[in-house]
Structures are given as structure tokens and as C-alpha cells.
């Protein structure tokens, strides 16, 4: 369980994390999604006490991380694949980490096996590939068998098999009742792993909702319509969840109405329509749009409400 309240971090003039509040619940995988530089890593570093918040606070299992007597048994974090001395072997790195908590050599060997590092465990970490470094980082995170697991971009540099392994592991950890907090800048990755999604952009939370809800929202149809009387058509379609934007003269992008309904409405009102193209909207597109414009963040809290600007005729869901 992670609880952030009014968490902010400023570096000089730059605000990396801006008054962020969220709760990460146990028993599910919570995705932390945002473009590079959105404040994901900074937030995660503040959770484990490496960075001090400028204001606000964050608790893990009810206490600030540093107050725990056995922090590695509370929270395991993969923050940065390169948090290892390059001249030390993976085995010795884990042994040194384990020693701080009196964690047994058995457990060290266990996480080495678990992360598939057995064959390279005695080699210097400096020679590791990005993927092996990630695996070692995950091994460190699991060392204390923690109830909360934080993974910053865990699939970075992993091969397809490794990506599957991380997904599977995250799901399994959550199924065991642990809190799993996973960051990524890839929406597609999140769609396959997370139960709940927290979206961050320029240091602010844009969305905080179950992933099913977000995906459902994204499944709204978008249709490109070419007509000579766009305003009349939008009027005819007016209703909850239907929005429209006039992209250029005579070209409408309508969200929330099936093509058939648009055609029927046009027929009803004797409006000439000479193009009717259903659009596939990917999560990726929505996410890109969501995180592109800073202004959007303040008025929106759901990605599916994106298209509200312009000649909307039925804002809301």
C-alpha cells in the first residue's frame, strides 16, 4: 500500500512532481504511465526516500519508508538498472544488500534462480547487457520478499521472453496480495499488465482509474464525416457521450456515435453526407494526445474526454 498526499518535488525553477496525490492498493497491479520526464521516476524515488519531497508526503504500509525497521522487507524497488557497482558480481551485490537485513544466503540464491541469473551470477555486473541488469534489479527488489514492489520501467531492454516474464511475475505478485506499482511510458505495455492505471504528465496526475474503465472509454467510436451542413448534423446527433470537432470546412470528427446512427440522423434531416469513415482509435493515440498539451491536464481527468474542445454539442460521458 502506497499513499501519496500532496507530493511535490521542485529542482530550482523546474517542478518535476506537482502536488500529486494517489493511493496504490494491494492485490493488484497499478500502472504508472507517463511520457519520459513526466515525473514517474522522481515520484518513485520519493517513495523509497532517495529524494526528499519539496512538500507533501508519501507513506508505504502506513509509514515513511525510512521509518521502517526492515525497509527491504516492506518495499522492494527496481529504480534504475544501474544501481550496482560495475566491478562487483551479481551474487556479491545481492549478498551485500542481503547482509543489511540479515537475509540468508538461501534467499540470495533463490532470487538469482527466480530471475534467471544463475549462469551469470558470479560475473562482473559491468559486463551485463541491459536486460541482465534489469533482471538483477528485479532480483534486488525481491530480495526481502517485500509486500510492496515498485518497478520503474521494468521491461526496458528485456527481450520478448523477458517482457512476458515480467508481466507474468507482476500479475503473480499481485495475486499473492502484494502491492505492485509498475511504471512505463508505453500504453500497450500497461494494457497487458495493469489492473489500475495512474497517468502522469508534466508532474500532474491526469487519470487515476481502473484500466477496464479507461479502455472502455477508449472504445468509443470515432467517425470522420464529410458534409455540407456540419452544424445541422451535430444538432441532430446531440445526446450524451456524443462530441464532434470540425477539423476543416465540411469535415467532422464525431466521437460516441455509431456510423449507422450518423447515417440515419443525416437521412432524417435530409443532410447530404458524402463520406463516412469509422476510425480506429488506439490507446496509444489517446495517450499521446493526452500527454501532449499541458493545458489539457487541468480541465480533464479522463482520457476519453479529449475531444471536448471545439464545437462540442454534448460534453460529458
Amino acid at each position, binding site marked *: 500500500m502506497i499513499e501519496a498526499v500532496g507530493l511535490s518535488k521542485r529542482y530550482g525553477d523546474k517542478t518535476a512532481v506537482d502536488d500529486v496525490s494517489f493511493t496504490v492498493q*494491494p492485490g493488484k497491479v497499478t500502472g504508472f504511465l507517463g511520457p519520459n520526464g513526466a515525473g514517474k521516476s522522481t515520484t518513485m*524515488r520519493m517513495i*523509497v*526516500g*532517495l*529524494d*526528499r519531497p519539496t512538500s507533501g508526503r508519501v507513506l508505504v*504500509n*502506513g509509514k515513511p*519508508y*525510512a521509518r*521502517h*525497521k*526492515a*525497509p*527491504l*522487507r*516492506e518495499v522492494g*524497488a527496481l*529504480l*534504475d538498472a*544501474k*544501481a*550496482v*557497482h*560495475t*566491478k*562487483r*558480481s551479481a551474487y*556479491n*551485490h545481492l*549478498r*551485500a*544488500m542481503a*547482509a*543489511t*537485513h*540479515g*537475509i*540468508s544466503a538461501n*534467499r540470495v540464491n*533463490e532470487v538469482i534462480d527466480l530471475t534467471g541469473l544463475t549462469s551469470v551470477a558470479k560475473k562482473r555486473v559491468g559486463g551485463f547487457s541491459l536486460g541482465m541488469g534489469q533482471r538483477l534489479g528485479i532480483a*534486488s527488489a525481491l530480495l526481502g*520478499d*517485500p*509486500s510492496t514492489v515498485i518497478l520503474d520501467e521494468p521491461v526496458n531492454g528485456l527481450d520478448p521472453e523477458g517482457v512476458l516474464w515480467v508481466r507474468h511475475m507482476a500479475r503473480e505478485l499481485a495475486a*499473492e*496480495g*502484494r502491492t505492485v506499482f509498475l511504471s512505463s511510458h508505453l500504453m500497450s505495455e500497461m494494457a497487458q499488465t495493469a489492473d489500475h492505471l495512474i497517468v502522469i504528465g508534466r508532474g500532474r496526475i491526469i487519470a487515476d482509474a481502473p484500466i477496464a474503465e479507461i479502455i472502455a472509454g477508449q472504445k468509443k467510436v470515432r467517425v470522420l464525416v464529410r458534409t455540407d451542413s456540419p452544424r445541422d448534423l451535430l444538432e441532430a446527433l446531440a445526446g450524451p457521450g456524443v462530441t464532434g470537432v470540425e477539423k476543416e470546412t465540411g469535415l467532422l470528427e464525431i466521437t460516441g456515435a455509431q456510423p449507422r446512427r450518423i447515417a440515419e440522423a443525416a437521412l432524417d434531416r435530409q443532410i447530404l453526407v458524402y463520406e463516412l469513415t469509422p476510425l480506429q482509435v488506439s490507446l496509444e493515440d489517446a495517450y499521446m494526445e493526452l500527454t501532449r498539451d499541458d493545458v489539457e491536464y487541468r480541465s480533464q481527468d479522463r482520457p476519453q474526454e479529449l475531444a471536448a474542445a471545439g464545437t462540442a454539442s454534448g460534453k460529458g460521458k
Partner: protein
Amino acid sequence: MSTATTSKNPPESAPADPTGSGVSFLRVLKSEWIKVTTVPSTVILLAVTVLVMVGLAAGAAWGTVQLANEAADRATQSAPSAGATAEAAPTAVPGAAVPTAVPTEGAGVPTDGAAGDSADDSPGGPPAASSLVREVPSSGVLFGQLLIASLAVVLVASEWGTGMIRSTFSAVPKRTPALLAKNLIIAVVSFIVGAGAAFISFLVARPILGSADLSLSLGDDGVLASILNTGTFLALLAVFSMGIGTLLRNTAGGVVTAIGVIFVLPLVATILQNLGDWISDAARFLPSNAGAQLVMAGTTAEGDLTQLQGGLVLGAWAAVLLITSIVVTKKRDV
């Protein structure tokens, strides 16, 4: 520490860890010890330090023998008048006795006591048990301090360089125990390396000195203290240097700064000493100059710090750097 360290809702499938429990200083100490011993270059550097220190001391012993032989030759060739030996010895001392030393007080080598002392020895006979001879075992400290200071900086700054510090401070988020453990380990290791190298130097130097009938024993005035204090000097200097490395968080910058303070500042003070008495007065309190008094085995020259004072001054330097580095590290982001 025995309760409440496992999670509130321990996951069912989580394997039980029989050793249990959380962070303690002893455990952090063990972790830091594992870190020191598992980076090969650290171990190699320590071995090299001992070797070089012993080698330097052997050279110093040999130089002292040469000096004694020259003095003896002169004594037999010229008329055996009472002051000849005494006059010859002091002029030849600095260069011959410590061949690699920069001939300044500031370089951390106990050259200054030698000149005064051998002149006091009884004329005619070999200058047995002069402070020059008694300080042979610790003469490797000149190079030892360079290596130990660098090692202390590297040990801590490389954690920032590689990102390891994030792992360290994730495991020990209070930070102070980790830094204290690091400092304690480098201090103890440096003490053992310094005192050990000086003792080996003593064993190596004895037969060399014996070839010129110069005797050296642990019972001689100040010899044992000088050997032990070689360790004390290096231990305090290591803590001082580790403080610099912790504050700068950069290996190259830290090494340059530490070497600058230890080696270059005393030289600068020597160069500028004619500008005013206060410069050489102040220079006595530089870490390496104060520390050099620790390994002295002779009487203190007029105006110099005593052995105890030198130790206290270097100890104060180390304490200030240690405390500052901990306070600053606790506040800063990692």
C-alpha cells in the same frame, strides 16, 4: 527489532525467511565489509600499499646505512677529532636517508627531526638508535598516505559514480549507519595496513641496518609508537579523505582534492613561507603536517606540534569531515 518487521499481510506463498528482522549497525557493517572485499581493485590496491610502504622503508634503511658508512669512513680517514662525525652527518641527512622524499617538512615524511637528533649522538661511534633509524619503519607512510587517501575517496565516490549508492541507501534509508560503517571499515583497514606495513618494514629494515651495526628494536625510544601511529595516521587520513569523497560524490574530483590538500597545500605553504611567519605557523595545522608528527620518534623541534597535538589536530580534521559529510548526505537527494 524482533516484532513487526514482516509485512502486515504476509502473502501466503511468500517463503519464510528464518533469519528475519531488520537493519542493525552490525549488519550494515557486514554489508559494507562484503562490499570492500568483493571489488578486486580495492584488495589489490591495499596489497600494493603494503608492498610500496615496505619497499620505501627498505630503501630508507639502506640509505641510512650508506650514510653511516660514509660517516664512519670520514671518521677513520680524517683525524679523529671530536666533531667531525657530528658535522658530516646532518648535512647529508635529508637526501640520503629518504631518497624519494620531497625535501620539505610538508611532504609528510619525518625528515626534520633527523637533522637535529643525529647531531646529538656521541661522536665516533655509529649513530645508533638516532631518530633517523627509529623512524625507518614508518618512512613508507609518504606513499601510503597517497594510496590510502585515494582508496578512501574511491570507495565512497564510486558508489555515486556507478549508482550503487541508490541500492545502499534503499537498504539503509537512514543513511548515517551506512556512512559510519564505511568510515569505520576504511579506518580499521587503514590502521592495519599502516601499522602492519610499518611492522613488516621494521622486520625488513633490521637486518639492513644491522649490516652497519645500527641497532633497531621495538624497545627503542618511540619505535613502537611510531609503528602503531603509522596506522593511526593512515586511519585518520582515510576518514578525512572519505569525507571529501562523500561530499564531492565524484571519484576524480575527490582524489584530486584529497591529494591537493594532503600533498600540495604543504608545498604551497613552504613556497610562501617567507611572506610571513603566520604561513608556516598555520601550515603546522594542515592535515598531513599534523599527521606527520604522529610518526615521529625523536624529540619535537622547537615550535612544532608534539606527537599528541599532531594526532589531535588530524583527528579534528577527520571528525569535521566525517560529521559534515554525514549531515550533508542526510539532507541531499541521492
